[in-house]
């Protein structure tokens, strides 16, 4: 307390001298230089802080329309028409392709479920690239929804998994492969953490994002136990002429910079009855997709009759993505010795 008082009176004295009465002109000149330097430093610091604005493109500043755009769920039919027309024009201007921008609603009595046969997957990664092409994912910086893990045999241990494998040929007989993508959880943690409700679960089980409502806080990326959400650090970069023009507002339309995106089970395809791109491209038929509410569907059969594995079941997110196995597994690595009469003896 005593020290503090002394200090205070000390500074009082120095202030007095800086304003310069007794000691005279020398002090006030110095005071002026110091103040000028402080002002200069302040101005330069402000300029430095504003320097990143030089990289601002005109596209980065939202128009009044964009700024006032409502949340997807609050848009009326007229709002949607206006917004979709604007997005259509923006995409055409940027990519030179007239998109077919749709907004297919969830189908009644449909809940999508995905099955993936771990006994048959060979780790060829064709699903990864079919997905990238179908969903207009950025090629640089690279965004991929599917991550194919090369796993050690004998357990399902993600700690020893590797997704950078690159042998001349797959499958490696010593390993097995486990592709991971959005599990479309029934209790999605990514939805719970979103501070602006830009992401939600649709009635058919697909968790979607309103890219124009997302603020890019990346909470959902941190919350997801399946590493299924991706962030657009830049405007997505697509090679010329590779824009896939069949798009939906909630799935594969080109994303803006600074928003999250994720697998939507290709809802622009699946909500009109088609199979997702990853299912269609899989050379081994390891990927299965369908309506679990239809007891005749492939996925209903799989859930009823096959051995199922749920990744990170213990975190309680209730995924709609099921890994399954065949009775004897895939036997590609186990050649059976041909029968000879001697082997009988």
């Amino acid at each position, binding site marked *: 307390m005593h020290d503090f008082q002394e200090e205070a009176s000390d500074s009082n004295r120095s202030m007095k001298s*800086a304003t310069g009465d007794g*000691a005279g002109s020398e002090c006030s000149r110095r005071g002026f230089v*110091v103040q000028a*330097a*402080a002002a200069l*430093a302040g101005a*330069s*610091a402000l*300029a*430095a802080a504003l*320097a990143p604005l030089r990289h601002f493109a005109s596209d980065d500043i939202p128009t009044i329309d964009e700024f006032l755009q409502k949340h997807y769920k609050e848009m009326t039919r007229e709002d949607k028409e206006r917004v979709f027309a604007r997005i259509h024009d923006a995409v055409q201007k940027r990519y030179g392709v007239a998109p077919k921008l749709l907004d297919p609603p969830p*189908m009644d009595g449909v809940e999508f479920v995905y099955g993936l046969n771990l006994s*048959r997957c*060979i*780790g*060829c*990664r*064709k699903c*990864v*690239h*079919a997905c*990238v*092409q179908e969903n207009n994912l950025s090629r*640089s*910086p*690279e965004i991929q929804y599917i991550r194919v893990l090369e796993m050690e045999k004998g357990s399902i241990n993600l700690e*020893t998994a*590797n*997704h*950078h*494998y690159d*042998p*001349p*040929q797959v*499958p490696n007989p010593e390993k097995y492969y486990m592709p991971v993508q959005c599990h479309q959880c029934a209790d999605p943690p990514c939805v719970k953490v979103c501070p602006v409700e830009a992401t939600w679960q649709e009635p058919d089980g697909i968790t979607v994002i309103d890219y124009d409502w997302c603020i890019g806080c990346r909470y959902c990326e941190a919350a997801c136990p399946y590493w299924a959400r991706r962030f657009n*650090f830049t405007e997505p970069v697509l090679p010329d002429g590779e824009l896939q023009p069949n798009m939906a507002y909630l799935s594969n339309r080109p994303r803006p910079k600074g928003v999250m995106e994720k697998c939507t089970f290709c809802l622009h395809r*699946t909500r009109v009855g*088609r*199979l997702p791109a990853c*299912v*269609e491209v*899989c*050379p*081994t*038929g390891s990927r*299965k997709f369908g*309506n679990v509410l239809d007891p005749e*569907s*492939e996925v209903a*059969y*799989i859930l009823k*009759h096959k051995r199922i594995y749920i990744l990170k079941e213990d975190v309680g997110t209730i995924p709609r993505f099921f890994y399954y196995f*065949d*009775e*004897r597994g895939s036997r590609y690595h186990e*050649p*059976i010795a*041909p*029968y*000879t009469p001697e082997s009988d003896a």
Partner: protein
Amino acid sequence: MAEEGINRAGHRSGFAILIVFVLLAVFLVISPFTFENPALEPIHVPAWCTDISPIRQPDMAPEYPVGVFTFRCNDCHKIIPPPANDRIREVVQHREIELKHGINTWCLSCHHSKNRDAFVDDRGGEISWSQPQLLCARCHGPVYRDWQHGAHGRSNGYWDRSLGDQSRLKCIHCHDPHEPPFPPMPPAPGPNTLRMDSKVDRIPHGGRNPLQLDHDEPTD
């Protein structure tokens, strides 16, 4: 006197701090280090990576092309008698076929001995060449059961058959009947993320793949 000394020292150090700030601000405004985008060049993805056609395009007919001609199997095998017993012997024709299919040792495990335009069933009857799955089902019951329900094998087109067609492939669209394991193939390009490639030196984790544990020696 002492007061003045303190003042002067205070001004001097304040001035020095200001100089540092000004220099820093000038440095930031000029920003001599240009921004280098850490995103790598897009990788080339070959067209086969997104090709949805099946790996085999088998003829679903008992035809055998020889040069410009195509023969039905029975064109020759009607004349040539079938082997009299099941002693294993070298084939003199069709030598391009190497039979590596489980415990099968000869052609007539699957091909009908009297009518070579058909396959043989368990009772010596005929299975049409267009229905090879019935032949496969003789041994591969569980897989056939799964295939019938769509849990095995490829589907393309529509999951909702009321909205469009769904194509189902048969066994031999993926499996060579004479050597059935699904053939290995080169993998499509892997993830080209920041921690790979030549820029590995100036990235975190010391260029080490953080997903690879220390006891895993990276293989080339």
